[in-house]
């Protein structure tokens, strides 16, 4: 099924965005996020971008203060996911212009819209930035 969840967490460990593509109860999510964040934030830049946790493989990338963590299953190509994270950041960058943690916090809905255009049901839907951003631009124009 591919991507199981996408998390954006700052370096204090606070979740800034969470999107799951399989159902987990709130307790399961809390536990999972806690464990993963503890594991990934403790790593340094000499270590690889992949962490095995339970049945998941976490592919993660750090941009300034923000960590992007993507949980995948065995069916995914790790490097492709790593670059998909970068595509997501570039897309947000194109929209916000020099995107930062605050943009994502205070425009949570936009971050969700973008993600929704990019991933659906754990699979990648779209990789063209123009196509991803088209609905949001339409909405911005309308309001």
């Amino acid at each position, binding site marked *: 099924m591919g991507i199981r969840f996408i998390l954006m967490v700052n370096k204090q460990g606070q979740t800034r965005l969470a999107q799951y593509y399989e159902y987990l109860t709130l307790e399961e999510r809390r536990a999972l996020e806690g464990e993963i964040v503890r594991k990934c934030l403790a790593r340094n830049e000499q270590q690889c971008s992949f962490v095995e946790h339970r049945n998941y493989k976490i592919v993660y990338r750090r941009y300034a203060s923000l960590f992007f963590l993507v949980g995948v299953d*065995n069916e995914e*190509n790790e490097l492709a996911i790593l670059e998909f994270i970068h595509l997501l950041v570039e897309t947000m960058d194109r929209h916000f212009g020099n995107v930062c943690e605050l943009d994502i916090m205070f425009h949570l809905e936009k971050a969700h819209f973008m993600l929704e255009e990019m991933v659906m049901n754990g699979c990648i839907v779209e990789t063209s930035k123009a196509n991803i951003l088209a609905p949001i631009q339409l909405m911005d124009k309308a309001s």
Partner: protein
Amino acid sequence: MSLSGMRGLSVFISDVRNCRNKEQERLRVDKELGNIRTRFKNEKGLSPYEKKKYVWKMLYIYMLGYDVDFGHMEAVSLISAPKYPEKQVGYIVTSCLLNENHDFLRLAINAVRNDIIGRNETFQCLALTLVGNIGGREFAESLAPDVQKLLLSSSCRPLVRKKAALCLLRLFRKNSDVVNVDGWSDRMAQLLDERDLGVLTSSMSLFVALVSNNHTAYWSCLPKCVKILERLARNQDIPQEYTYYGIPSPWLQVKTMRALQYFPTVEDPTTRRALFEVLQRILMGTDVVKNVNKNNASHAVLFEALALVMHLDSEKEMMSQCVALLGKFIAVREPNIRYLGLENMTRMLMVTDVHEIIKRHQAQIITSLKDPDISIRRRSLDLLYGMCDVTNAKDIVEELLQYLATADFAMREELALKAAILAEKFAPDLSWYVDVILQLIDKAGDFVSDDIWFRVVQFVTNNEDLQPYAALKAREYLDKPAIHETMVKVSAYLLGEYSHLLARRPGCSPKEIFNLIHEKLPTVSTPTISILLTTYAKILMHSQPPDPELQNQIWAVYSKYESCIDAEIQQRAVEYFALSRKGEALMDILAEMPKFPERQSSLIKKAEDTDADTAELSAIKLRTQQQASNALVVTDQRPANGAGPQPSQLAMVMIPTTTTDTDHSSVEQDQALTQSNGTLTVVDPQPSGDILGDLLSPLDLEDSQSQSEHNVVPNDALALVEDQESSVKPIGDIAERFHALCLKDSGVLYEDPYVQIGIKAEWRNHQGRLVLFLGNKNTGPLDSVQAMVLPPSHLKVEVSLVPEIIPPRAQVQCPLEIVNIRPSRDVAVLDFSYKFGTVLVNNRLRLPAVLNKFFTPIQVSAEEFFPQWRALAGPPLKLQEVVRGVKPMSLGEMASLFNSLRLMVCPGLDPNAYNLVASTTFYSESTRGMLCLVRIETDPADRTQLRMTVASADPTLTFELKEFIKEHLVNIPTAVKPSPPPQQTQPLPSATSDPGALLAGLL
């Protein structure tokens, strides 16, 4: 800074952010939840704008990890809102908060369906996304035809169709009947003709799910996938928006190659050729570039291509390239590539027969086992486990044991289990197996299940030769100050059964053993106490003549436990107490345990039965099966007199150790070549403590692109696969191998491209059993095989017949029975010849049936040593010599050399710290068991000289022993001598026949 103008929401988010601790946050969140709840209660007064705002707040709170158990209805109701902004919020929040089994979701089915079949394509997109993310069975049944229609409709725009594809994927997973309609596979094939890359990307995901379920219906799609791959690889008709750092959609390339891996093979020659051309281009054309993102993207494609080649390349056209690439990857510094290299190498073990080539990288893989990154360590562990076989088991297991001491807690259990399985499966000899398991219990007792120690007991019970060894080991571990309870159990059991075999050794009297074990009793749990009670009874039984003091001690223990609350302990105490008063009867009742029937290892069985779905585990399973089928045929040559090889009771693998890999150069070269690699990981260069600064600073896109150079130089050394086919030269240094075998009992005696001769020997007093393993390494038979032993006069050697022909890939065992008549340093020679095709090969090899094999090390105490030492006064019983030209070694090294010569170093006997005292018992028919004492006085100022004094009650023995030790101390046997042709026809029965001894004498 507002959420589409929702000021209240921004304020709330700021408030939460400003909370100084979790408690404040909780209070603020609770207040907000209360507020939302009241507002939702009188819903009538709520404007769509307010509703939208509150629903977003709910999502935010939920994301923070707080339960939001109300308001779901409001979120769902927004789906039916007429205006886009409200509708959108309704869809998104519903799919985040609810799951497919939620009752409220059913209420929405109609509204969702209306949006799907409606004319508004933005509404269609929202609805399809919701169903795609959380739609359940009911959705599948009611919506599948509508969704299919959208996907296939030519009038529908790509933005709707790409969502329809993934929506259908969800519905298919909920109910696979949705695509079980006639002609669906044709439509799928049609979809793969799509030009729009967005639609194609989603359709490919749908296709992967379909073929993974059943590929047979989709053969017609296979050429289309290859076409797509060609189009991407050649960059034909790819819009700029879909190229990522110059690479045509890496994600679609990866997905397409993934889909192809679900087909067992590509039959059609044209398609196959086209596909292999593309793959070849990827394999050859992927260079390491400066830009991190481009590099990652191209390597994502490369790794997928590798996986596809491994899957399809049954003809091995491109396999060697793959192996070379992976060999290169596991040695680079860039951690992501190394991780994936290790992972894919493990996969490769599963799909194809590359075991031998992968073994060349063993050293590199072991290096990764010590990597600071746990992700890489795990991959390395899996790979080592998968690649282990009889030839490298010793090395690998020893590495695992070493690593166990420092491994993180998270990995210990897995490590312990894997080490135990490998030790059992591939043990070259049983004493090694016992060593490994005892070390395992010592280092990671908590992770050693009962299965494992039961298994050791079975092996020891069934192999008499092993019993004294195991008992001695158990005794050694008991000396340690704090030992794991499992160690107490296994030691107590072994010593109960076999400690009487050690009785002659110092510190091993029944009383001492009892005291040692009894010390542990207060610290152990009830089941262990039961074992200890039995051990005491056995010790009592074996102490003949009875020792009244010991008897009283043990009886005191029994009477103490007579009234124990635990029924098992109580019963044992009462029964043993009564039995031990019966004298003779005790002997019969408490006799040694009978041998165990042969049984499959429960550990291995467990490992095999585990129904694991991960690729890694099934790889291991597959390998086990392969090994079973490729195993060498063991033709058991039993000699006519019936003294054949004792059948190994527990079907252990009995093939001796390692083939020395002579080709290390590639690995070293690799390391040298990759020293200047940079790292690809993207990190903030200056860790900033300022939170606000971080929040506001851009996410550093640029920085991630300007990473350091990454120059992995292509390495040709790895491509050398076969290079041994010229003339019949021995592999490795024969003299060195012989020398090594003088110090250990199993290993390789000789190897050339056609044949390998392994040795496994067991020595007991003046007798020995030595088994030669003659292995044909080739696919053709070996003819005219002859193996004759030319024994020196002091050895009686009985050889069994060797068959004339050794079939391809077969191994023949040839046991020799050896009896030592008197002390001598002369060496037996094996005259071995064979024909391979027209090549006649003849070799004379020294057999490691040397003086020290008839030693049994013995530790003597000061009270025993000094009277003996004084009694053996002067020549010829005590000889002294100053030896010069000694290999410089530390005292510790010398001590371990002595120990490996079976001369047991007795520390503390000589007051001078620079001196060394050792003792052993020598056995021969003429001398019987005879104590030998050795004293070495070293000169700390000049380590190349020392004074040696040797004493025994037999003058020949004293002389021979002195010369023998000298040979091993002086730097001759291996280094100086350029590997002498092993001896003349018949070794002369004089003391000077060995060239080593000759030279040593001259010095």
